[in-house]
């Protein structure tokens, strides 16, 4: 037996030595980085029509395309609590339901005949329309946007079809453990009735009529809520004239819509648990409420995220995936919005037998952010990743113009991104630790576990993370 042992060792050793027995010659330190070409900031023309509609235009003649995106203030947060799903339906059917000029089938045929794409949507805080088509049809592209935003048909048959799709969606919503975990975690943070986490049920869909869609659309889609960005192959003056032709006579809205609702959050510990007998892997989220982009430490938190849980070099990736091999996917991030608070959350998908171990590893990494300062190397790496990839914020025209729309809506200064960059440059290890101490609360986290408890390495009680609630995800009929 010993002999065999030595032999395999010897063979393995030789093969490894052979593989390394080539000339060494890579000297990374000799590589010089020339100065990066200056980023030419494109000249975006901004115009406000008399009716309050804001227009952003950017010429770019590299390809024969026109692209547009309209951001409309107002989304599903405005739907009544007994009609959850109304916002999404309104958003989808703005385009899918046809327009006064074009029945849904005509619209579909025309767009696909042109190889064009036109989509509408509603999310929680805003709605919108996106378009891409060949620039041979400049006027038609604007007319399409105007038809969809100003004169949607909300075709009865398409409404019925969408209802079937939405109800089928509900029937399928428990088919994937990972999406159960994400959905239920959102409700644990914002509350199950919160517009930021709630979701449609058969009952709330059943309460929605086609007229509700028309009324909801009327309420939010009006020129003083719209920011229309158009970029691509056109002349600015010509495009502006077309836009005025199709949107100039649109009447301003008068009714004031509600502000983004506040989130009432008290830090505490809880474990939510969804039992899935067939589960092959536990899906886990843990965290708490997050922050506002305008918090003074926002840039410090960007560096903190990179150290803790974003990217290959992060602590969570190194510890939970590389060192312990407990997962394929692990990350942690403190998110911020301007409209309503973001979330701090960590995710891991791990086999049942390492569920508790993985959660505890993540928890101790969060704690370490508060107790230990990052090493100089970690700090540099976290900052470099942000600073050196900064140029990718300017990779496409669409990105640049849509960022401007967003900043403009929330009244951020034009140079907000550059300010943020300067702040990241100046961030110290002490800043990161202070931000962690102020914003991370491993002692008050909410945890959701979706999996098969029979396979867990220890009972959920051993997490010592407050009360354990079994969440029933049975779909109410």
């Amino acid at each position, binding site marked *: 037996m010993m002999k065999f042992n030595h032999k395999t060792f010897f063979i393995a050793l030789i093969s490894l030595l052979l593989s390394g027995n080539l000339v060494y010659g*890579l000297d990374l330190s000799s590589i010089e980085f020339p100065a990066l070409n200056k980023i030419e900031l494109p000249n975006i023309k901004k115009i406000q029509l008399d009716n309050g509609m804001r227009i952003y235009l950017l010429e770019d003649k590299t390809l024969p395309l026109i692209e547009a995106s309209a951001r409309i203030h107002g989304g599903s947060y405005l739907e009544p609590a007994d009609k959850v799903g109304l916002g999404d339906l309104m958003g989808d059917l703005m385009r899918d339901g046809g327009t006064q000029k074009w029945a849904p089938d005509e619209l579909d045929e025309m767009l696909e005949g042109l*190889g064009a794409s036109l989509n509408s949507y509603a999310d929680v805080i805003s709605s919108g329309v996106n378009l891409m088509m060949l620039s041979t049809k400049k006027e038609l592209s604007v007319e399409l946007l105007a038809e969809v935003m100003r004169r949607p048909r909300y075709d009865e048959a398409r409404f019925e079809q969408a209802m079937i799709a939405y109800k089928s969606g509900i029937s399928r919503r428990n088919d994937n453990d990972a999406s159960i975990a994400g959905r239920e975690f959102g409700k644990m943070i914002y509350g199950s009735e919160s517009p930021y986490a709630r979701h449609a049920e058969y009952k709330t869909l059943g309460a929605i009529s086609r007229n509700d869609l028309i009324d909801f659309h009327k309420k939010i889609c009006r020129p003083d809520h719209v920011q229309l960005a158009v970029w691509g192959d056109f002349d600015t003056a010509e495009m502006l004239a077309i836009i005025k032709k199709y949107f100039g006579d649109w009447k301003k809205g008068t009714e004031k819509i509600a502000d983004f609702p506040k989130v009432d959050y008290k830090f505490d510990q809880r474990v939510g648990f969804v039992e899935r007998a067939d589960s092959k892997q536990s899906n886990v989220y843990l965290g708490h409420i997050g922050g506002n982009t305008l918090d003074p430490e926002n840039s410090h938190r960007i560096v903190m995220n990179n150290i803790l849980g974003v990217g290959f070099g992060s602590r969570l990736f190194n510890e939970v995936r590389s060192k312990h091999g407990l997962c394929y996917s692990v990350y942690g991030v403190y998110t911020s919005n301007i409209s309503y608070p973001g979330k701090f959350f960590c995710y891991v998908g791990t086999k049942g037998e390492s569920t508790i171990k993985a959660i505890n590893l993540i928890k101790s990494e969060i704690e370490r952010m508060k107790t230990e300062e990052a090493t100089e190397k970690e700090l540099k790496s976290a900052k470099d990743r942000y600073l050196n990839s900064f140029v990718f914020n300017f*990779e496409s025209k669409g990105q640049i113009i849509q960022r401007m729309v967003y900043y403009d809506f929330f009244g951020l200064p034009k140079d907000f991104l550059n300010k943020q960059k300067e702040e990241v440059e100046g961030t110290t290890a002490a800043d990161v630790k202070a931000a962690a101490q102020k914003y991370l609360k491993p002692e008050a986290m909410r945890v959701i576990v979706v999996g098969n408890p029979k396979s867990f390495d220890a009972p959920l009680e051993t997490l010592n993370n407050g009360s354990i609630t079994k969440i029933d995800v049975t779909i109410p009929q």
Partner: protein
Amino acid sequence: MNRALKGLFAVIIMIAACSLAYGSVFDFSRLQKSIVEKTLPNGLKIIVLPRHEVPVVSMVTWADVGGSDDPKGYTGMAHMFEHMAFKGTDEIGTTDPAKEVLLMAKEDAIFEQLRLERLKGDKGDKRKLERLEKDFEKAIADAYALIVPNAFSNKLENEGAEGLNAFTSKDQTAYMVSLPSNKFELWMALESERFLRPRLREMYREREVVAEERRMTVENRPMSRLLEEFLSTAFKAHPYGIPLIGHSSDIQNYSRSAAKDFFDKYYGPNNLTLAIVGDVKPEKVFELAEKYWARVPSKYKPERVATVEPTQICERTVIMPDKAQPIILMGWHIPDETHKDMPALSALSSILGSGRTSRLYRRMVRDDKAAVSVSAFSGWPGSKYPCLSVVFCYPAQGKSASECDKIILEEIEKIKNASVTPEELERVKTGTMTGLIAGLKNNMGLAQNLAQYNQIWGDWRALFGELDRINAVTCDDIQRVAKKYFVKTGRTLAVLETAQESEK
């Protein structure tokens, strides 16, 4: 009615106007002329498209090896190696290259004994297994102590890398990253080094990561489980039928030497292509390629898979009971991507099941309300070898898979009997053109397309030939291929049937 007719008329006019504009809308030939390629003496091919609008560059290293090349008993090895390619090189990723070799050899030696003992199954010596497992854990921990985790990736990410990633498919393995263009040389250096002197450290931990990836992407997802059943039924002989990520038992059996053998066979420079799109000068790219890649010795060009899937002689059906809601998918055998029938098959799939004007969407989603989603695609799960034309469908709530199956077959029968309309075919052609133009917006997407067409067709120019090929398709061609390939005996059907807990 009047309005509808008017609308239809307008549509026809627009289609006519658009077809006149073919070719004149965008001059692909100018773009094509700016693409340069070079092959080094060791066989490495480099394709460069310079674009200087923004100081960034996207790179892909495209390896002509995929899941179809997995060795017997090592399903998933192509994918496993993709993971290992991020573990660094002899010098990058360790604090002590020489000592690491010894510790890795120790891991390998213990694992080999453990592996052989495990293969004995119930007859294995339990005490010995326990001891070996303990030793193995210790050897892994000892080797890990010398590791600088994720050092290779960090070198790129710290310099501003975006989208650092890789994927493995049945036909290829691709390694992607974008960088600020002034860091281009760093990529050349690192990329050549990892395929010259990869060090397969953390081999045994990484297997566990891959096992978790399998749990996440396959075992915990009903659709993925169904796909595995479907493919292994449709392909009895050709490796398109084996799971890309590997069987669990094979993953547990991977050794470092098996991974090394795989690398030695498939990762010679003559089996790789670099595609680079962005703010670089081709002369400089070629100069750096000489500097860094000329060090990498050529290898035997690996052969293609010899196994040809035998003609399917009877319809095959898989029924998978599951708690999830119904899913139905079906496929017919078709040739590889370069076959002359492929443009017509691809158009047929689009007309059947791509977009809101497609026949299946209109019939099943819009009119009969039998499905909430249906789509068709030709060239799956790979296209280097003869593959499948498939239809995927999610039935609407309360509708059965068999209702959907019946409708899908009826619609295919209609095309066999009366082909498609010129308007339908025209839409496919226009869609292909705008898709090609829109695809030019994205450096990384374009780099991958150039590399893929180069691999499958032997020439990246085939990407731009896509337009000519689709424009040559006629309605008769579509009817002919429908009759030729969509035959009953050649069909494989897979259905997820919703079952109660007790039935499982």
